[in-house]
């Protein structure tokens, strides 16, 4: 069944916007447009007449939407303004996840909540993905550093790979420091000597 709520997604992060758009479509909402550049934002909103706008909480363009909401009663208004008491938690969760929303008058509370929940979940999922990606990147970096230090020890002490690795592991245990930190120290010392 098609739910007749039209949503406009505004997000400069195109990959996050795509994630959110797909999730909303999967839930049966009509996504009017996905805007990643906020040029002529007011004109877009006037033309598209969305029931709800989902926008990154940290977007500077929110003050453009505020102006429309304050001066034109037909424009979507910030959801934080007229939430019923029961929705405060939903809204707070959304804000903490970096989601803000603007809704037109008359949109039912349960619809607002449902869309906010989808957006909140996607923003969080995206945040986790980004964190995992950056963790993976630094893990890769750490491994590269350890490899490089191992190579330098092998060259400097004329020893086997296994020997070099064991020497580093012993240092890490003795000094109670992570391997990559030991590796970094070794690199800076040995590079200075060569």
């Amino acid at each position, binding site marked *: 069944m098609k739910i007749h709520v039209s949503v406009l997604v505004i997000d400069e992060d195109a990959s996050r916007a795509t994630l959110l758009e797909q999730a909303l479509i999967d839930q049966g909402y009509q996504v009017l447009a996905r805007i990643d550049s906020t040029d*002529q934002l*007011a004109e877009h909103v006037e033309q598209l007449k969305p029931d709800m706008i989902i926008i990154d*909480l*940290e*977007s*500077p*363009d*929110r*003050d*453009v*939407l*505020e*102006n429309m909401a*304050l*001066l034109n009663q037909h424009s979507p208004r*910030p959801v*934080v*303004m*007229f*939430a019923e008491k029961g929705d405060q938690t939903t*809204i*707070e969760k959304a*804000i*903490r996840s970096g989601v*803000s929303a603007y809704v037109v008058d008359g949109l039912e509370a349960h619809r607002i909540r449902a869309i906010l929940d989808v957006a909140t979940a996607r923003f969080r999922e995206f945040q986790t993905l980004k964190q995992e990606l950056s963790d993976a990147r630094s893990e890769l970096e750490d491994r590269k550093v350890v490899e490089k230090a191992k190579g330098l020890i092998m060259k400097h002490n004329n020893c086997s790979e296994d020997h070099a690795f064991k020497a580093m592991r012993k240092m890490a245990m003795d000094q109670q420091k992570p391997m990559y930190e030991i590796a970094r120290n070794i690199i800076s010392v040995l590079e200075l000597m060569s």
Partner: protein
Amino acid sequence: MTTPFSSVHLPLTFPMAEKPVLKIGFIPLLDCIPLVIAKELAFFAEAGLDVSLSREASWASIRDKVQFGLLDAAQMPAGIVLASGMGLGASQPMVTAIGLGQNGNAITASNPLYNALNPQNLSMNSESAATALKSYLKTSDSELTIASVHTYSTHHFLLRDWLNHYNIDPENKIRQIVVPPPQMVDAMERGMIDLFCAGEPWNSIAQIHQVGHKLLSGHQIWENAPDKVLGVTKEWHNHHPYTHQRLISAILKACLWLDDERNKRLGFQLLHDSHYMDIDLGNINLMLGKHRFSPPSATFPWLSQASWFTRHIRNLHQLPDTETSAGNTYLTGVYRKVAELMKLNTPSADAKAEGIHSESWVINGTQEPIEMPPDMRFR
């Protein structure tokens, strides 16, 4: 004689802060400086507060975070705080007990508009600029697009004040829009806006990039006009009265420190070199905005100034022009309490005459007379 800066302290007997670890929001504009100084010169720490300053992207984000407790307090245009007290633009009322300074605003015209309005590049006043704009509008076929940064910002009201005063209908042949400050210069360069009113450094940046030209400074509309305040929700204030007082004491101390041309220069240099602004301030003359932070004239929450803002807010929403007191939003009593504990002078009255003094003048103070700066309108 004013109190020497070094002898200004919060008394040791002052009640403990209910919440010593605080997060305060600000927008990267030059007038965020009292908060930055209070942090960097450890006046917050001296008041027993561990404050982190959080740079925010929009006034909407500041409002949401303050309303939902993600920020304890924030720099805000006075209009946003006063509107919240009138049930507008926020879901719960906010209050303030200290102003964060005066001036710093200007109106910038795009190069084509500036050349049309002032072809000989003479020095303009609010009347000559308005006359030029009026005749331009009369002969021009197209609509002018004028931008400010927020519906309830001081800039928007100064702009409307100026147009109204010289009988220029802000709805006729003029389209008023909001553009976020970081996009202002770019929007002007691409011909999307003809005129904007914003806080520094944006007027200077437009001029340096040769995108626009300053038409009028904010003082030519209202000399030493109030602008930002420190806003908190009424609920936060009720739950943290002593934290609030300590916060105000630290900011007052920062404003006292900034009440000295040499310190002000140093302060702006610090702002320039720090990570607080995400803008390249390059060769901008940071003193050009004529910012004033002097307590008590620039920091006291004057009720007479609140009514200027509330009148504009009512006009915007076509609400009846009934004089309502801003006393529930502008907490003059809280300011007085803190100033008294710090042995600082405060004005004897909560309101003053506005817009009639072309020279410095004197008003009664609780300790001694206070020298007030000019507050003339339309120069």
